[in-house]
């Protein structure tokens, strides 16, 4: 039950996060195309890489404050113009994309002295040893 509620909350957060990033991406694209700029041109003016412009416009990544200011300056608009219409998230959670990715190769349980700090998913801690984390950095509980 608690797990289902947690999943529902995560899905709602993911949807809200997606709406925010999409709206921001739409705003950036609208301002860019309004100036007749290509992604490459905007990247050059903003001294960012084209990949970063692309990721923002495709709502795959959000900008930090400095990048927001740089983009606004490059597009000759107030930062508020790029934030127009964005809903306000009520909380902060880990990235919803995290679960989609496979982890890097695991190298077995991580030990610190006699304590197992981390057990990769699918493996079991040694009997008698105290494991304080499991799977993705302890999210699975001991």
């Amino acid at each position, binding site marked *: 039950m608690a797990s289902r509620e947690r999943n529902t909350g995560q899905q709602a957060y993911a949807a809200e996060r997606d709406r925010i990033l999409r709206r921001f991406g739409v705003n950036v694209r609208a301002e860019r195309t309004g100036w007749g700029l290509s992604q*490459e041109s905007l990247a050059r003016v903003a*001294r*960012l*890489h*084209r*990949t*970063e412009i692309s*990721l*923002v416009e495709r709502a*795959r*990544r*959000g*900008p*930090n404050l400095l*990048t927001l200011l740089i983009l606004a300056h490059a597009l000759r608009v107030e930062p508020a113009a790029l934030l127009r219409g964005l809903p306000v998230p009520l909380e*902060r*959670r*880990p*990235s919803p*994309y*995290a679960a*989609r*990715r*496979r*982890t*890097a*190769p695991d190298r077995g349980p991580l030990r610190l002295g006699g304590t197992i700090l981390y057990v990769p998913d699918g493996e079991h801690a040694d009997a008698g040893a105290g494991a304080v984390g499991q799977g*993705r*950095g302890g999210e699975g509980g001991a």
Partner: protein
Amino acid sequence: MEERAVILQLLRDDHDERWTLAELVSEIPDLGRRAVRDGLARLVAEGVAVTLDECVLASRCARRFDDLDLIGL
């Protein structure tokens, strides 16, 4: 800029976590093979990326930072 462009590729969720140098170069062709290779070398030297056989991937630390939504542009 090279390092930023490379690690953003390595953290993409629509690609296998392992990348070859050729794949990275083809995704960011404007940088050129040498710049991609140099940026990658710096990322590996600092532990942001790791090599595995003939491939490279984001380190677990980098992925966890990203999972925690701490990596913005």
